[in-house]
């Protein structure tokens, strides 16, 4: 296992290194001098020079890159130009909300998939199968902000049962029942595509599993189909479904930007959206690197889980 990890790490480091270089380079390409933006229109050349020096912009590009990367690695992220304050404290404030939102949507996605997948695989009613196929296609294909606006329109405006956006006025931890009300729509919206992909995968692998000889044996012995699915077949297909789930978590990152924007949820997604609109590049830079990092690490973790389950990958024999 450790050898597998060691073999994977160099390429991971290479991708992350290249991505960081790319992000750094891209942000440097932006026209306009951050120092004069920061100093304001009335500042004299001395003030601008002082700010340039303070930000390290008078150093060579490689030195600036090294300084920035060193800062990121030691969680010394610097200051935000426009939103204001320390970037690390901005991240800290948003991260909690985003983690709450994404974990809620993960729970919803897994719950929906584990119910809908087996139902889809084992149903004998054509209308139900068509319905599930149709809903599944829509859920996979519709962008998160489309379902988000639709939910707001239906449950927030036409039939006002849930708050249309924002966070509870007294904070997320004050009253769990209110928090759940605020969380329900954004989390559902974020969960939908994930649930759909997972349910489709579960259904397809369950159909394959149901043609195994042991299922025929169990059926012949008089075990009910439902029991075979829930007790035997589902358990056999769950491990590989984990991999699918892991691969899809990356889409949650992009989805979070949209969902947090639609529902005014003050997380990292909304932070990056605001930072890009306000041209607060140090914040954009750090958030971009962070999301690439999380994305790549999740992919690695997924591969590791897969390798744990499948020795052929771990030992690298076939490839």
């Amino acid at each position, binding site marked *: 296992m450790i050898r597998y990890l060691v073999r994977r790490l160099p390429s991971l480091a290479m991708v992350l290194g290249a991505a960081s270089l790319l992000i750094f380079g891209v942000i440097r390409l932006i026209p306009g001098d951050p120092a004069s933006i920061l100093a304001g229109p009335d500042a004299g050349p001395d003030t601008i020079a002082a700010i340039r020096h303070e930000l390290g912009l008078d150093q060579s590009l490689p030195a600036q890159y090294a300084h920035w990367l060193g800062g990121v690695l030691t969680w010394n992220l610097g200051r935000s130009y426009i939103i204001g304050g320390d970037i690390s404290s901005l991240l800290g404030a948003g991260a909690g909300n985003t983690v709450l939102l994404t974990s809620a949507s993960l729970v919803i996605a897994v719950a929906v998939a584990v119910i809908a997948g087996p139902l889809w695989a084992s149903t004998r009613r054509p209308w139900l199968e068509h319905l599930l196929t149709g809903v599944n296609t829509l859920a996979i294909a*519709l962008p998160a902000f489309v379902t988000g606006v639709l939910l707001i329109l239906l449950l927030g405006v036409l039939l006002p049962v849930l708050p249309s956006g924002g966070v509870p006025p007294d904070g997320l931890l004050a009253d769990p029942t209110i928090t759940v009300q605020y969380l329900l729509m954004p989390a559902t919206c974020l969960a939908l595509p994930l649930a759909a992909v997972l349910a489709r995968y579960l259904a397809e692998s369950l159909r394959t599993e149901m043609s195994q000889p042991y299922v025929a044996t169990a059926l012949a012995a008089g075990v009910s189909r439902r029991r075979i699915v829930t007790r035997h077949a589902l358990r056999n297909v769950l491990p590989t479904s984990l991999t699918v789930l892991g691969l899809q978590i990356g889409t949650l990152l992009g989805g979070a930007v949209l969902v947090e924007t639609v529902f005014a949820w003050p997380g990292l997604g909304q932070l990056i959206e605001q930072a890009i609109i306000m041209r607060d590049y140090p914040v*954009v830079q750090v958030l971009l690197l962070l999301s690439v990092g999380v994305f790549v690490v999740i992919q690695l973790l997924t591969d590791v889980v897969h390798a744990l389950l499948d020795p052929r990958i771990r030992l690298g024999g076939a490839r």
Partner: protein
Amino acid sequence: MTDTTVAGAAAVPGSEPPSGDVPVIAAGNAPAFPGRRRTPLLRGRGLTGLILVAAVIVAGVAAPLLAPYAPEEQIRNANLLGPSWQHLLGTDEVNRDVLSRTLYGIRVDALIVFIAVPAGAVLGSLAGVVSSQFAVADVVTQRVFDVLLAFPALILAIGLTAVTGPGAVPIGVVVVALELPLFGRLVRTATLAVRELPFVRAAEAMGAPRSWVLRRHVLPNVAEPVLVQLALSMSGAVFIDSAMNFIGIGVRPPTPSLGSVLAASVANLHSNPMYAVGPLIVIAVLVLGCQLIAQALTADRRRAGA
């Protein structure tokens, strides 16, 4: 598809087939069943998808005829009106007709999607073919693709527009950058697989030039998965395009786009609930149509392969 492949290959001047028989066998898996293989888009799901996409495109092209007002026209005394016969979807926060803005919004989005996706597909396929032929190019392009794929789609979009600023062209660039690795990987893998097939090896053994084999045997067989990916990519591009417009890094106002109309509607749904309905329906129909086409093509390939 089959017809154009055969016709195209036959029309290539100066290509000397090494033997009379090989091209006929190789020209595709189609000729034996001409009726069956030609029509996945003209029946069932494929047809439904095609009609949905075509309807949206027609609505966009005919926007000047269909729209009751100009997209940027501000109408007196018409602030956030609900639906009425004058304004079927009501009016927006600066007194513009929402239906007109939605119809004109289709044009920008459709233009971006239908130019950028094919461009990305062509460039990506070229990269795929090149990297399947030359080892050095392979290493370089694969590493570039690795880095491109390390960015979640919307994050890549945000990074690129940080440099270029918002606009229609940046959206196109983002779509191309997203499609490059998809088509590149797909074509590379498919090309490598086809080159191992017996009839291709036979052609090579008979001394057929590499470029001829590539054009005559490999590309026609790679075309089908590329078509499926094209339909899926269209759906993905509608997503990215409207998402970028939605979060405000797309087409600049006051030019309407589906995403920006939808974004503006969120804050005003209480005054005019119909505000969001137009873009919601159009985006849903476009995305669903592309998905149906992709499903029909995939099902057809699966049946043919079986």
